[in-house]
């Protein structure tokens, strides 16, 4: 299992490096730290779907990395802990925090890899820190949604559903003029600074930030509640 994780971590790093390369040769519409910035709302390019795919590719690999987390604690060593009255909440939270650390490391790695090449992309004058912050928060919400789904359906199915949802959300919000409520329902699109208002300094950013934090809290609470009544095999 540990060796699998090391391989997945290496693949994730490779995907991030490839992303920088693809960004630099594909199009001039990518911004610096483009993975967290996205495209302007009025970006009108026939290949926007493909470019979005390049944009969220690391998310797919991150989901592979965290995939199976619930299986590990409902089928593996967790059993020995649980029958000794080890708190299920504590067991779950340890897993959540461990993967949050992985996720934070992945975002930092993205920043580090992009840093020397950022001069090749469109400059972002404002809201870079805010964009990166909400990017990490939304990514974590997606991972928490993955945990919740895994408590109901197999990990591979959960991954597939999530990736389709992420891509469809980002694509729909990019192409169509959606209102704020629909944007919240399609929350993966909020990981981009161009969509969440961070880059343009819009007041709605504060609302989306609050939504991101609330989503994390809500999904964590739902995971704990479901895990407590989940059969352990």
């Amino acid at each position, binding site marked *: 299992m540990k060796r699998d994780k090391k391989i997945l971590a290496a693949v994730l790093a490779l995907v991030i490096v490839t992303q920088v390369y693809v960004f630099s040769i594909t199009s001039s519409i990518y911004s610096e730290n483009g993975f967290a910035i996205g495209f302007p709302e009025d970006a009108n390019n026939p290949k926007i779907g493909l470019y979005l795919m390049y944009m969220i590719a690391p998310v797919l690999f991150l989901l592979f990395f965290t995939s199976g987390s619930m299986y590990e604690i409902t089928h*593996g060593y967790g059993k*020995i802990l649980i*029958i*000794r*009255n080890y708190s299920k909440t504590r067991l779950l939270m340890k897993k959540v925090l461990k993967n949050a650390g992985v996720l934070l490391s992945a975002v930092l790695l993205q920043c580090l890899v992009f840093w020397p090449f950022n001069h090749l992309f469109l400059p972002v004058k404002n809201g870079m820190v805010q964009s990166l912050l909400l990017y990490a928060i939304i990514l974590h919400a997606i991972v928490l949604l993955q945990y919740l789904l895994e408590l109901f359906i197999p990990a591979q199915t959960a991954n597939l559903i999530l990736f389709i949802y992420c891509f469809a959300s980002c694509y729909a919000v990019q192409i169509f003029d959606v209102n704020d409520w629909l944007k919240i329902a399609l929350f993966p699109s909020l990981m981009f600074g161009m969509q969440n208002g961070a880059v343009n300094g819009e007041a709605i950013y504060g609302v989306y930030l609050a939504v991101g934090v609330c989503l994390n809290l809500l999904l964590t609470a739902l995971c704990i509640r479901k895990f407590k009544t989940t*059969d*352990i095999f």
Partner: protein
Amino acid sequence: MIEVKHVNKTLSHRLILNDINYNFEYGRVYGLCGPNGSGKTMLLRTIAGLLVPDSGEVVIDGKVLHKDISFPPNVGLVIENMTLLPQYSAMDNLRLIAELKKIATEEDMKTALKRVGLDSDLKVRKFSLGMKQRLNIAQAIFEKQTVILLDEPTNALDESGVQLIYQLIREEKERGALVVVATHHEADLQEMCDTILGISEGKLYEKKQAAD
């Protein structure tokens, strides 16, 4: 006493446990036999608190499982896929588990390993299947558990190992523990069990009751 009251459990649209009613008493050994897929393992897991029944309840010493208590207070369990940490030795595995409850001493751990005939400093990843099974049994008894649930405990054991485990079960009974042994080899249960229970298509019935 463990009271199983009208327990039903369905998995993947299949009724695994069908209105199970039974009282298990301390100081007795219960044998649970039935063919593969009959529901033995599911019943053990339900008593251990790992499965949540769809209806009915498991009452342990007057406390309702999943209502008054999350898990039985002191249960030892051997079931399939009891993942132990492969990078540690048998003793270190027990030490790590012991950290949770802090009721077992180093001596308890050494005694448990001796009782299952495991004397090795090797890492668990280098263990044979039989050695892993012995370690599984050791973790189910080293804290002097009052309820011991063993699912196919003699799997992967050689003949001497099987006899060792039978002896261990008798000793645990003498200590006052409630032991439930599930197996599809009924002959294995005849000698050491006070009561033999059959389970078929999720229904539990008594096959043999030893004279007290």
